[in-house]
């Protein structure tokens, strides 16, 4: 029963959603409205669960003084203070919440993402070598696309942005599309297997 009931729920609802996509009947629309209401009611619990989980994980770290526990204090303090600022003074422009966003979260997040540029430059210098014919093609394509992306490329020659667009539009597209078709077929096959009850590994166990 522990496996059969979830299986029945998944198969029944799965087929109902497939039917909803193809049959625009009132029953189908009503079913979808009912589903929407339930999702809206259930989703806030996921937030509560997330907050509880965060407190439990970091609370344990602080309690047991596990290495780098000080970061957990900052995480929890950040969570509590940001939430407090939002509830207390709102989230509009000029409030402490917005100040935190503009002066703490925004620059810190952007800084983390910007680190990529340094790693790319270093990796390009140390590892991007024309060791084989394939690597040479990749290297030339990368240089053309990089030049085509900036105004300087067009200033050097009109041919550079055009070649860059061609690389993105033809070889890149062919490879992407092949991967996508493969993934799409795989997803369809897996979905069908789940709907028909053949694929059950998500329930736990391997049969």
């Amino acid at each position, binding site marked *: 029963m522990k496996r059969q009931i979830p299986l029945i729920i998944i198969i029944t609802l799965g087929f109902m959603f497939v039917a909803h*996509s193809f049959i625009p009947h009132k029953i189908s*629309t009503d079913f*979808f409205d009912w*589903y*929407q209401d339930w*999702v*809206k009611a*259930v*989703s*806030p619990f*996921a*937030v509560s669960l997330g907050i509880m989980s965060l407190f439990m994980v970091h609370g344990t770290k602080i309690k047991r003084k596990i290495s780098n526990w000080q970061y957990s204090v900052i995480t929890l303090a950040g969570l509590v203070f940001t939430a407090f600022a939002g509830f207390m003074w709102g*989230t*509009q*422009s000029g409030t402490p*919440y*917005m100040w935190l*966003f*503009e002066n703490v*979260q*925004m620059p*810190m*997040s*952007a800084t*983390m*993402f*910007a680190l990529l*540029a*340094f790693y*790319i*430059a*270093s990796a*390009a*210098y*140390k590892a*991007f*070598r*024309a060791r084989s014919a394939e690597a040479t093609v990749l*290297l030339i394509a*990368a*240089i053309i696309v*990089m*030049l085509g*992306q*900036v*105004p*300087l490329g*067009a*200033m050097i020659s009109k041919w550079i*942005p055009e070649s860059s*667009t061609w690389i*993105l*539009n033809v070889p*890149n*597209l062919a490879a*992407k*599309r092949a991967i*996508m078709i493969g993934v799409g077929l795989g997803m369809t096959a897996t979905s069908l297997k789940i709907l028909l009850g053949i694929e059950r590994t998500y329930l736990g166990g391997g049969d």
Partner: protein
Amino acid sequence: MNKNVIKLFDKMQNIDRRYIYIVVALSIIIPLLIPFNSRTYVTKPTEDIYKKIDSFAGDETKAILMSFTHDASTMPELFPMEVSVLRHCFERNIKVFTICWLPAAAPLVDYALNTAKEDFDVQSGVDYCNFGYKPYVLRLPIMLGMGDDIAKAVETDSQGRKIENLEIMKNIKNYDDMNLVIDFAASSSALQWITYARARFGANIAAGVTAVMVADNYPYLQTGQLMGMFRGLKGAAEYEKLVDVFAAYESKDYPNGRPFSKEIIKETRVPITGDTVPYKYKKARIGMNAQSIAHIMIIFFILLGNIGYFITRKKEL
């Protein structure tokens, strides 16, 4: 080859990466601090979005939706796009809705709206409406629900007001009216809009993505499932220029912006030095200067690394 040259390249093969970091940092920081004028070439995917949005100018029965699916980390690339689109809408009296799916994106939407609206006489609930943060799990039901009735699917805006009571909702019911959705993301999340809003309801979908995600979205652009795409910071810079040249253009003949023309865009250069254009509306173009230099530096490093590689390999042989 001269022994000293070989020795130099040998040494450079094992250069401390911190020197590379310093060069990259300087090549980004200096152009940001000292802006210079460079030409912005407008490409078709950006041009198509501009023309589509502009076709809604002054039309009470049409609106666009801006979907924010990213957090602050990708703001340097995506934020200038968002501000430019908002500026375009406010300049040309186009109804605009905003929605976000990540808690971290909620203040970002407010920040974008506050940045753009301070130069215009626009009102929330009348000229624009922020649907606010909706949990990601609701993305699919809301996306599908908006195909039938936006007010029913979204229910309330960020200020808790009932959507159906807002003046902006007059003549706006579903995707037939809110006929353009632009998804700003650092992923391929526009695919969901294509699958559900476009395939099922025929909505026009466009994407604003970070440069690294451009290649992933190209298949949809080529098939027309994406009617346009902002391709990283370059796309943002292109749109900034389009808004400067057309939507924000004022003259006796065109008091509220002028219509798009390929000839004008080819001929016009908008200087980014000086105070002609406010800083917030030329951020992407200043950023493109830094990107240009950074790309050149990276290409230089690749070439230098390869020259060193071949010289040292020859020596080993």
